């Protein structure tokens, strides 16, 4: 059994160390509802929520933490040779078009369609898990985290559509 995401977050002092530690797990970590809640509680133990004058950097760090975990969880189902490309794409909306255009040249549009389906289904399963988290700020951070990945997959589909149309 690997170390939990909450334990990693508590142990690591910054987001880059956390990211490296999570990436080293190669997607093999518990990521069910209780694991998400434990990670959220570890985050809020370090960065308590405020009603007024919220610290935007701390909030953005929360979204980043959830995104690192969600991305590693969903790309583990992808072809190993293309995981790095999809990891980069899912963390940067501005990179979608150039990365997918390059991948289209090497792997073909058909492969992109299949990859998009796999990623979309994996993200939908993660969303179902997040939906089961009780309402509150832990859920808010995960919704914020997954929302951008959902947006990026929409951009991915737009790009595939454009490439398919020639």
């Amino acid at each position, binding site marked *: 059994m690997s170390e939990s995401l909450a334990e990693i977050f508590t142990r690591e002092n910054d987001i880059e160390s956390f990211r490296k530690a999570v990436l080293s797990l190669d997607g093999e970590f518990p990521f069910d509802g209780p694991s998400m809640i434990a990670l959220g509680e570890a985050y809020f133990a370090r960065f308590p929520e405020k009603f007024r*004058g919220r610290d*935007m950097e701390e*909030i953005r760090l929360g979204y980043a933490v959830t*995104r690192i975990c969600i991305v590693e969880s969903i790309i583990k189902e992808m072809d190993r040779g293309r995981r790095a490309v999809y990891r980069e794409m899912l963390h940067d909306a501005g990179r979608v078009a150039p990365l997918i255009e390059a991948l289209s040249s090497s792997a073909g549009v058909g492969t992109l369609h299949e990859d998009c389906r796999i990623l979309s289904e994996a993200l939908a399963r993660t969303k179902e898990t997040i939906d089961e988290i009780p309402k509150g700020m832990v859920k*808010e951070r995960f919704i914020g985290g*997954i*929302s951008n990945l959902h*947006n990026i997959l929409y951009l991915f589909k737009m790009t595939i559509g454009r490439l398919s149309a020639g």
Partner: protein
Amino acid sequence: MSGKTKVLIIDDDPAICESVKAILEGNGYAADTALSGKSGLEKFKATAPDIVLCDMMMEDIDSGIKIAAAMRAERKDIPLFLLSSIGDVTAENIGISQIGYNGVFQKPVDFDALLTVLGTVARTFLPKAD
């Protein structure tokens, strides 16, 4: 920019701003972004957008309510849509129209639905482009 419907996106998450902007621009809109309620209001006054998409929780947990009130005071007919990550709570506890919004989109946003609504707003309520 000329002739395109201008959408201002206000969200404290730069990644969300960037991805929503890219989707809107890819669908023929001119999009601008702001990362806080304060900067959103400044851009609203400076750029006169046609439509505003706004997050609820930013520097304050109810920033979206304050922004809507301030924008309505400036332009009472501006189409305002809330991008909410607490949609269930919002729907149950807050009347969307009572806090100044024309509608709410729950995150993750269904962009097919959002683009349909924006298209309808642009065709129905905004001055015709050249």
